[in-house]
């Protein structure tokens, strides 16, 4: 399912002295089956874009096309529910949304709202727990007795239980330890690779963008500055720095090597593995020259 923004503008508190424009006629598209990273520093409009992805907000101008539904300022509020099932959103610090007595019930809450029977929903919960790195013993525990990281996983399972076609993640790993971060990101990547889920990731972690995303959108002050493959965008480290964004550690390392030893990397290595392969080649060639 594609999501397209056409000339989308959004103004908060329109018509009051507090009005502020968050999005300025932006165009962007999120293709079916893609892993899109949405980056931009704080206040660039990421969260506002995010809330348009499943019609939690309606644009004040322009239109958003979600699958075959067109949402404009004048769209009715009724019947948007079906969209919410297709586009699941894991908000920032999603553990704040937990409320049920048990973990199982909380995960089953979403599917039940969309008409899945209690039994099926609970089975779904049981199925999902291992996927997010928890086991069945958690089923009957209270979500409020868990650690922060475990709560996060339960909340993520609660969104996955909707079986969305598009999964939107707003900094899903903020505040987790490195090991937990990698586990969670690998799990999302697995869903993208194996089940063909479309993923939209909002993040400040350029390493994650480099490792997982195949499409990258840079937002700044409510406009789309650039859109393209991370490999192309990360070439312009200076420009990204001017957007108050960095480059992944591999790219930084590669740039330093280029400066110091006049090496050139082509294509630009995005992951540690890619970097290692290219460095090995270059070092081997160097060793050959010396002999």
């Amino acid at each position: 399912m594609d999501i397209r923004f056409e000339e989308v503008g959004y103004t908060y508190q329109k018509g009051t002295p507090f009005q502020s424009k968050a999005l300025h006629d932006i165009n962007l598209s999120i293709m079916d089956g893609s892993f899109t990273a949405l980056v931009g520093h704080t206040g660039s409009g990421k969260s506002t874009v995010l809330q348009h992805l499943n019609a939690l907000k309606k644009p004040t101008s322009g239109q958003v096309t979600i699958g075959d539904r067109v949402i404009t300022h004048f769209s009715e509020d009724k019947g948007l529910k079906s969209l919410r099932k297709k586009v699941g959103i894991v908000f920032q610090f999603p553990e704040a949304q937990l409320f049920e007595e048990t973990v199982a019930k909380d995960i089953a809450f979403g599917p039940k709202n969309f008409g899945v029977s209690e039994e099926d929903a609970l089975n779904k919960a049981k199925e999902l727990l291992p996927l997010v790195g928890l086991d069945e013993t958690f089923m009957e525990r209270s979500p409020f007795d868990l650690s922060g990281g475990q709560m996060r996983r339960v909340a993520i399972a609660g969104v996955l239980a909707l079986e969305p076609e598009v999964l939107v993640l707003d900094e899903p790993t903020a505040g987790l330890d490195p090991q937990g971060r990698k586990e969670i990101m690998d799990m999302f990547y697995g869903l993208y690779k194996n089940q063909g889920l479309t993923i939209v990731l909002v993040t400040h972690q350029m390493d994650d963008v480099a490792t997982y995303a195949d499409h990258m959108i840079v937002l700044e002050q409510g406009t789309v500055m650039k859109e393209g493959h991370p490999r192309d965008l990360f070439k312009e480290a200076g420009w990204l720095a001017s957007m108050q964004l960095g480059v992944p550690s591999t790219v930084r390392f590669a740039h330093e090597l280029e400066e110091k030893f006049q090496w050139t990397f082509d294509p630009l290595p995005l992951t540690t593995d890619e970097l290692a392969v290219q460095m090995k080649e270059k070092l081997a060639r160097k060793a050959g020259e010396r002999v």
Partner: protein
Amino acid sequence: MMEKLIFGRYIPGHSFIHQLDPRAKLTSAIWFIVIIFLANNWLTYLVLALFVLTAIKLSAINPKFFINGVKPLIWLILFTVILQILFTSGQTIWFRFGPIVISEEGILNGVFIFMRFVLIIFMSTILTLTTMPLSLTDAIEYLLRPLAAVKVPVHEIALMLSIALRFVPTLMDETEKIMNAQRARGIDFGEGNIYQQMKSIVPLLIPLFVSSFNRAEELATAMEARGYKGGEGRTKYRKLSWESRDTLVIAAFGLLSVSLFFLRT
């Protein structure tokens, strides 16, 4: 939804009313509610209305905001007005239908009650729109200070008030975030029958309670960690200063009270 809430919202500005000392504004607003009960004929209500309109003009705030302030209470006001019209006995009967008797005095009373409501709301709206909530609590603390002599923890009360006010916007943000998260999980707020709507409140309230308690605990820890101790000997960041314009306003209210006293019948 949240965006329509007008109560307790401050609108920044530099008008005459904005610059007044919060103590002057608070006492005047309270005094106004007292003296409005002196009014009992057309002339007195006219004087009061003119007074309030002048104050609105001086506040340089769009009159739309004042109308919006009345809106949430309109049903309560109309209900009271209708009761007045129906149950005031009078000599001049205008309309009689079975047990329903409408007299001239009844209508008049209804109109006066309506005026009273609207004027009080306008006056208190002027106060809340032009005064920062924190300045208001400062004013309350100052005005309650005599009570400290009888061991009322005035500073603590004021601190609780300002913390409560401080967290209203935070709670609103939090509410909106949780609402969004639950809507994304298939909850329709404000749709369906009463039972469904009540049920949809639970997934909103529980997370809100949990986060409020967490927040309160964190705040207490943070204050403790910095050795916060209020009351005695503590200086203030925002100082209140009484200017001649504040005396002027109090004088205007005094004049208003006197004229009401003479004009009432």
